């Protein structure tokens, strides 16, 4: 069970965006590293080869100078002396016919004649009674008089050097790869832990616990910002839910009161009315109450529509000032009756896009409330008071 879960967890880890990103970067990085390493390797190899051939050239030049001043006898003597020295150089002087005059090469495999020029040569050294293959870079010149002089350098040293370079390069690439994979896993795991926490919390919230919030670590990174935004969304949702709850509570109350009144007056009429006229009066009362309820429902519909905001996108172009004048005109007699003055202060046209219906309803509600809750001026000489509705 545990194994399955850990396998699943690893699977999930490999599927995370962070891990995929890490792998992508790793691939690009590897390609670059290998390219650079190859370039460096080839350059080093070329340098080594060049160095060997330069040394050979220098030596040949020296030997040639000796030959020119002392002839073949001096050259043979010199070569014999060089050959005695321990080291890695190969020497050979042959006659024009190919007979060995001096040098440390026992036999040549070819027909005995050395080609002129610089080239690689395979040869064998007897070590502990066993011939072992070696590579050497040799330079051969044909001396005036038909003698041939060959000088060579064993390449085992440079080969070793070269292999050290390649091995180090290979290992460092492997090391980089391993490091990158480890880094990817680390980053992905860290992100996954954060995301898992978030998912856990959001699940809880989805299950109904709206007070839950994401833990916000104060690192200021992108996850922190995301968590912060989510928390703000949750705050807003909670606020809206609270508003909705209060709203429906209010509706329930607003509906209950007139319904109870309606029921009571019907009951009252049934119990105590004797004459038809009394019953008629009671029924009139009942109808009035029902009309009030209808009005209430219409208002609720209006509020629902305004809340949905759907009416706004089908807005028409309207003149606020004209609308204000219309509404004021409708309410003017009512205000006057209440001992108030209703005036519209608006100079020019002001066109907006919106619902004339909703705007006039809003203005009407404002003016209506202003009229209802204003008391006529207390001064006796001037018993008129101004209502100011600012928008």
């Amino acid at each position, binding site marked *: 069970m545990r194994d399955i879960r850990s396998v699943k967890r690893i699977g999930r880890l490999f599927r995370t965006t962070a891990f995929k990103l890490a792998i992508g970067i790793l691939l690009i990085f590897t390609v670059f590293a290998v390219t650079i390493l190859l370039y460096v390797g080839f350059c080093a190899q070329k340098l080594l080869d060049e160095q060997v051939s330069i040394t050979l050239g220098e030596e040949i030049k020296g030997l040639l100078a000796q030959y020119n001043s002392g002839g073949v006898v001096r050259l043979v003597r010199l070569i014999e002396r060089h050959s005695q020295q321990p080291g890695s150089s190969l020497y050979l002087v042959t006659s024009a016919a190919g007979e060995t005059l001096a040098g440390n090469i026992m036999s040549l495999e070819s027909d005995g004649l050395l080609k002129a020029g610089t080239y690689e040569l395979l040869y064998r050294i007897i070590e502990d009674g066993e011939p072992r293959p070696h590579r050497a870079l040799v330079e051969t010149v044909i001396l005036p008089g038909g003698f041939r002089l060959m000088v060579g350098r064993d390449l085992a040293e440079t080969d070793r050097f070269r292999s050290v370079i390649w091995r180090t390069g290979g290992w460092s690439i492997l090391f980089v790869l391993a490091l990158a994979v480890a880094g990817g896993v680390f980053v992905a795991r860290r992100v996954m832990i954060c995301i898992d926490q978030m998912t856990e919390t959001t699940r809880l919230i989805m299950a109904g616990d709206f007070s839950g919030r994401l833990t916000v670590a104060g690192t200021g990174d992108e996850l922190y910002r995301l968590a912060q935004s989510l928390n703000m969304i949750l705050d807003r949702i909670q606020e809206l839910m609270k508003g909705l709850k209060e709203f429906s509570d209010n509706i329930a109350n607003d509906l209950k009161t007139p319904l109870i009144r309606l029921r009571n007056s019907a009951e009252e009429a049934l119990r105590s009315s004797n004459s038809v006229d009394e019953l008629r009066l009671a029924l*009139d009362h009942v*109808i*009035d109450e*029902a*009309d009030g309820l*209808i*009005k209430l*429902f*219409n*208002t609720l*519909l*209006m509020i629902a*529509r305004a809340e949905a905001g759907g*009416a706004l996108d*089908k807005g028409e172009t309207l003149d606020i000032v004209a609308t204000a004048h*219309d509404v004021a*005109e*409708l*309410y003017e*007699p*009512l205000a006057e*009756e209440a001992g108030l003055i209703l005036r519209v202060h608006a100079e020019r046209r002001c066109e907006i896009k919106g*619902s004339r*219906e909703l705007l*006039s*309803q809003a203005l*009407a*509600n404002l003016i*209506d409330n202003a*009229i*209802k809750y204003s008391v006529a001026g207390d001064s006796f000489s001037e018993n008129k008071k101004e209502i100011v509705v600012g928008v």
Partner: protein
Amino acid sequence: MLRIIKLLLIEDDASAAAYLVKAFRELGHSIDHAPDGINGYTMATDGCYDVLIVDRMIPRMDGLALIRVLREQSIETPVLILSALGQVDDRAKGLRAGADDYLPKPYAFSELLARVEILSRRARVTPTEEIIFRVADLELDRLSHRVTRAGVEIELQPREFRLLKYLMRHSGQVVTRTMLLEQVWDCHFDPQTNVIDVHVSRLRSKIDKGHDLQLIHTIRGAGYTIRETNR
């Protein structure tokens, strides 16, 4: 005095339909009921009705589609739409489809009755209207915007003139407060307070003050009417 109106009600809610049929029959009107769009369409094309009352959401054929089809066939019977979708754009959609009036549910029966009576009158009178409306000794000249009572000119504000004109055009019929709000003020919302009552009482004081015969009457639970006799 009572004109019999021939009505067709297209409504799928059986209890609402039964209530309306009973109410209209009690008032002496003749009313047929169709429970769905197809039946309603057949009956509307056959019978000669004064007014159609159509619910917007009915089975087998949508109310708006029904009206559109009728209008395409030049059947110009006035149509009143009943709808639970009491919204402005729905009202606009209904009127665009060819309906003549729109009443959102829930509504008061008195409101429906008043509107139906107005619509039925519209179906009968010729479209050319008289220039001068007369009720008893009250005269309103639509062209010169002059109002006189017993030969004496009465000064009216433009809105009061429109209010009186509307009342006089439908003299003898009940006009509800909502109808006045819609027709005179072009307001499609409920102003909660009795604004209309105040306007009408102002108008009444200008028209009826100093005269024995009161012309503007309040109909309890319904609205207003302008007429000579105190029925």
